[in-house]
């Protein structure tokens, strides 16, 4: 096959986005967006044969860039497919969700979504560090603009800027790493990381720089605080960007460069530690909030924590598998939540309840997704989570395994609480609602099918089944799930310890640290503004002061 086809997953959405910019009628815009997304899904399927034959797309791009190289392998094909297919489903879902939006806003929306899908594919397909950084920032930019999408919501603007700034801080880690590699090896291909020119210190800088970037992108501790705030985005966006694709970019980075950095002292431990803390933090966030989408956001942080721990424990294959499964079931959960939110016009679970009868299909698919999230057998989440736990048992210190198992219990607890509050109980002071429209249904059913069927993608399914079923940790995990759900069922007085939990959240979540640093910046900015008195005399005093200071420096420096 012609390697130029590798570029399809990037080009199709981008061209679609350009076309949409020129359209005016909302109906046509919806149509073109859906068409592009589906076409892109088909085009991306070509990556499977392409990656099998190790196709390489080489584009000479001048002295500064060197050669742009796109080379799909199984990992990048997987991630690109997730982006394309979940992207397509999110776009189909959006036709109903964004119904009634004016054409200018709709153009902005679909344009950014398609730009994002292409960027995400580019991010995983490229074999060029600078280009990787470019796509890395591009998806951050799309995410920022989409979080801040709703015009009249100041929280949306704040959340967007927060997400952008935190991922940018992480991006510096990537930037520094690339600088170090490019500066010493003089080459930006991934091979340059193996170059012998990289001294151990430099390599450590690169490894930990990448780690910081990955943690920020994947909303891992201590950078996790942007993800819950990002929930101001339209819900299909949360499903696509903040559950299924962009947040996986960090995991992708770790998976991709694991072989390079595995020997760095402390690197894998750090990875596992970040993962474990995120598992617990995310669970805590999910447990403490009443906002349906924030529950899911916390759950995403927590599940990505499992991925980080798995990569750290050396279980790359298990991580890849869980990444795929998580993308499917979390995408499903977000879209289901979106359907409920769209119908009820609220995100507060306190105002939900009893939706089960009115939206049976949404309920059924949401339940499937929830069970997969908890890790109930035979759904996809079960297999991959057990594989990760098993890897932790054999490769990680005991306390990490313990913490991961605790996380399983917390997952069961908050999932039980979420499902009960949204779907059971009585409908409280709200208007009756109707089942979701067709476009939403298509997306939900497809994803629910994926939740059941995705284990079939595994080439060595039989081995996995016997392995998982024979491991003692599986039984233990199932017991913990029951325990967690049981605590939820008994409605044990969590509210009593809520204060404690919140204190824990505050302490661990570094929210105070976060707030203090923001306040410090603001205060210093405010304080410095006081220095600009606008009085000529004081300005001149600053000049003379600078002269005096410089003379001192010259006297001292010149004498040395």
């Amino acid at each position: 096959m012609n390697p130029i086809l590798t570029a399809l997953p990037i080009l199709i959405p981008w061209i679609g986005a350009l076309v949409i910019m020129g359209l005016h009628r909302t109906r046509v815009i919806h149509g073109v967006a859906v068409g592009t997304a589906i076409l892109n899904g088909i085009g991306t399927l070509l990556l499977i044969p392409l990656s099998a034959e190790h196709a390489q797309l080489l584009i000479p791009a001048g002295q500064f860039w060197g050669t742009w190289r796109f080379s799909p392998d199984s990992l990048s094909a997987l991630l690109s497919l997730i982006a394309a297919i979940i992207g397509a489903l999110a776009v189909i879902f959006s036709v109903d969700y964004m119904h009634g939006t004016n054409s200018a806003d709709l153009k902005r929306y679909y344009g950014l979504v398609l730009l994002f899908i292409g960027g995400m594919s580019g991010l995983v397909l490229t074999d060029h560090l600078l280009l990787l950084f470019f796509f890395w920032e591009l998806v951050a930019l799309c995410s920022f603009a989409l979080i801040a999408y709703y015009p009249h919501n100041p929280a949306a603007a704040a959340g967007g800027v927060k997400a952008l700034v935190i991922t940018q801080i992480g991006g510096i880690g990537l930037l520094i790493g690339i600088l170090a590699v490019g500066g010493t090896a003089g080459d930006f291909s991934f091979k340059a990381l193996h170059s012998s020119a990289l001294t151990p210190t430099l390599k450590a800088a690169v490894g930990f720089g990448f780690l910081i970037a990955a943690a920020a992108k994947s909303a891992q501790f201590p950078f996790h605080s942007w993800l819950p705030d990002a929930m101001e985005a339209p819900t299909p966006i949360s499903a696509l960007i903040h559950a299924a694709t962009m947040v996986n970019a960090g995991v992708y980075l770790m998976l991709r460069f694991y072989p390079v950095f595995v020997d760095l002292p402390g690197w894998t431990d750090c990875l596992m530690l970040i993962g474990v803390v995120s598992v617990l933090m995310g669970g805590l966030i999910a447990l403490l909030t009443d906002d349906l989408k924030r529950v899911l956001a916390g759950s995403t942080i927590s599940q990505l924590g499992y991925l980080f721990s798995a990569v750290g424990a050396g279980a790359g294959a298990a991580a890849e598998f869980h990444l795929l499964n998580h993308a499917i079931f979390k995408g499903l959960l977000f879209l289901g939540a979106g359907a409920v939110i769209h119908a009820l016009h609220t995100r507060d679970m306190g105002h939900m309840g009893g939706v089960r009868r009115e939206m049976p299909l949404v309920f059924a698919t949401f339940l499937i997704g929830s069970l997969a999230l908890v890790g109930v057998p035979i759904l996809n989440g079960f297999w991959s989570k057990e594989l990760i736990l098993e890897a932790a048992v054999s490769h990680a210190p005991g306390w990490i395994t313990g913490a991961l198992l605790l996380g399983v219990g917390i997952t069961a607890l908050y999932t039980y609480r979420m499902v009960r509050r949204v779907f059971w109980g009585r409908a409280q002071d709200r208007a009756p609602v109707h089942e979701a429209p067709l476009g939403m249904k298509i997306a939900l059913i497809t994803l629910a099918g994926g939740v059941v069927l995705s284990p079939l993608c595994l080439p060595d399914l039989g081995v996995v089944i016997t392995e998982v079923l024979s491991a003692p940790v599986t039984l233990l995990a199932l017991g913990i799930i029951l325990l967690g759900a049981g605590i939820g069922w008994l409605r044990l007085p969590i509210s009593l310890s809520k204060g404690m939990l919140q204190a824990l959240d505050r302490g661990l979540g570094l929210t105070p640290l976060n707030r203090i640093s923001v306040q410090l910046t603001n205060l210093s900015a405010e304080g410095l503004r006081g220095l600009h008195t606008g009085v000529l005399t004081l300005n001149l005093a600053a000049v003379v002061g600078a002269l005096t200071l410089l003379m001192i420096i010259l006297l001292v420096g010149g004498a040395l």
Partner: protein
Amino acid sequence: MNAVPAFVWLIALPFVGAPLAYFSRRRWVIFGIIGALWVIFGLQLLQPRSTHYRVGEVNLGLDGAGVLLAGLALTLGTLIGVYSSAYLKHESGRARDRHDALLLILIGALLGLGCATDLFNLWLWLELLSGSAWMLVAFHGNRPAALEATVKYVTQSMVGSALSLIGVALTLWQVGSLDLARISTAGSSPLLLAAGGFLVIGMGLKAALVPLHTWLPDAHSQAPSGVSALLSGIVVEAALVALLRLLGALAAVEFSWGALLIGCGCLNLIMGNLMALRQSEIKRMLAYSSVAQVGYMLIGFGITALSGDPGGAQGAFFHLITHALLKGLAFLAAGVMAVGLVRPLTLADLGGGAKRAPLAAMALSVAVLGLGGLPPLAGFMSKWQIFVSGFAGSPGWVQAVVIFAALNSVLSLVYYAPVALALYRQTDTTATRVAQPVSFSLPLLVMLLVSLLLGFVPGLMETLTGEAGAVLGSLWVP
């Protein structure tokens, strides 16, 4: 007397043209002169570089840095000339003529500054540059705020001039000549060290080194938008280049000028960014961000001064170009947005901007995001070049400075991103599209396209910045 090279005409023409434009009272005169300048500039580019011309004892020479400054000055000057046709539509004819004549003198001063090789001559060009800049800032002299800004600009500038002249006198005392080439062979002495100090303060004042920058936010926010674009885009940077040229002549002095520049750069970065963080007025915020952006250039030049590696200066020159384009674009777009406003343009006024003026909104958001250093916009590419040169084989503290600078560009996003957001989040539902005159949209479009192009093909400027960087780099060979 040897044949007169083309660039001499380049310098001379604006001075003939300015009175012509003023007294003829025809607007096309200025465009004719700018067109002629472009022709001469093109002819000059065909000639070999580093041509020299002597006027009396004073040498003029056009080298890579001069070509870069000249090209940038002509580009911005042309675009702002076009822009001002619409911007000044409602001013009286005399005011417009004054504006045009002063604009020509400003361009002429920039062209001349790039060619100066004599210390006193350099000072005088800088003085001419600030003189015409003062008067352009005072354009809206009937507004108290503009008047106040001009008073500060003039007074502080004059203190700076006096201090630089002490530096000139000290150099003359020690060396007996003001030729920069002669000074660079004079070796080290305490007198030259002190001279360097006075010149850094005096010229640094015009290049807005913190804490000498206090005039900048006032002047740049009160000038007409086109003038702000020129001032922020190139006037301050030209002063910086002048400062670097003379520091290059003092390279033999036993003092680490490079470390001083990098230190000043860090101060500029943090001060500019923190001050810009809480501004609600767009033009003032942009002006403070210029203070920060000068910091990147200082760091780039400082790296070259420290190690003699021309890469840093090359990156800094590239940043000079991208900053001139992006900041110019931002100011011009802000000017379009402010049309019809009685008070300064604030962040709140930008709501619905994308509906009112789509092109200006696009331009402003690309400009601010590019200035914030998001790849692959041009602003990232130039910062990247500076970072690369700072990372490769520099001492550890320079690498720390690079990380600090990278963190600062995140800080700058905190105030840039809301601008782009406000434009597209259409809170102002009543907004309708306002037809823009061609003289507004044309400069915006040109600068937008060029800055986008530079982001994707940063190699375009490589010959230009490479030559300019090599000129400065050759001064600092250890």
